[in-house]
C-alpha cells in the first residue's frame, strides 16, 4: 500500500507538471493581457498543489506555512492587474 501511495504521489506530480506546461502555453500565447493574467492565477494554484504534494512526500510541515502565505496573497496581483486593465482602457 505504501508503494502504491508513493506511486500515486509521483503520478499526481507528473499530472500537475503537465498542467503547468499547458498553462505556460496559454501564458505565452494569450492574445490579450487578461488571458495572461488568468494563466498566472491558475499557475499559482497549480504551484500550491505541488507544494502540498511535497508536504505529503517529505512530511515536513514547514511547507504548509509557505502554502498558506501563497494562498493568502496570490490574488492581490490579479486584482492589481484588473485595476491596471481598467486604467489602460480609460486612457486610450
Amino acid at each position, binding site marked *: 500500500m505504501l508503494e502504491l501511495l508513493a506511486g500515486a504521489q509521483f503520478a499526481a506530480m507528473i499530472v500537475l507538471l503537465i498542467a503547468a506546461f499547458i498553462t505556460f502555453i496559454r501564458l505565452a500565447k494569450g492574445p490579450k493581457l487578461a488571458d495572461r493574467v488568468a494563466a498566472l492565477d491558475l499557475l499559482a494554484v497549480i504551484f500550491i*498543489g505541488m507544494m502540498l504534494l511535497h508536504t505529503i512526500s517529505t512530511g515536513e510541515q514547514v511547507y504548509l506555512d509557505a502554502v498558506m502565505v501563497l494562498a493568502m496573497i496570490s490574488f492581490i496581483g490579479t486584482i492589481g492587474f484588473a485595476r491596471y486593465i481598467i486604467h489602460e482602457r480609460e486612457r486610450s
Partner: protein
Amino acid sequence: MINGITISFLLLGALITLLAAVGLLRFPDLFSRMHAASKSASLGVILLAVAAAMQIDGVIGVVKIVLIIGFIFLKSPVSAQALARAAQAPGEPAYNMKAPEEPPISAEKSSET
C-alpha cells in the same frame, strides 16, 4: 484504508487540475477560459489539500490545511470576478455574446467607491 482514500483523492485532484489547464488552453474566449480555470482548479487543489490532511500527523498541520482550503475558497471567486469585470469593454469580441454598449466599470467610478 486511509491510504486508499488518499490515493484516490490525490489522483482525482491532479486530474481535475489538469482539466482546468486544458480548459484554459482550449476554450474560445476569455470568459469561458476563466470559467474553466477558476472553479475546477480550486476544486482540484482542495482535493489535494484533503489528501495532505489525511497523511500528515498532528493537529496543527490539519488546522493549517483547513485555513489553506478557506483561503483558496475565498480568493478564487474574488480574483475571477475582478478580472472578468475589468475585461468587459465596448467592442471587445467574445464568443457568442454581444459586447456591452458602454463600459460596465470605469476608473473614476471604481476609485470613488
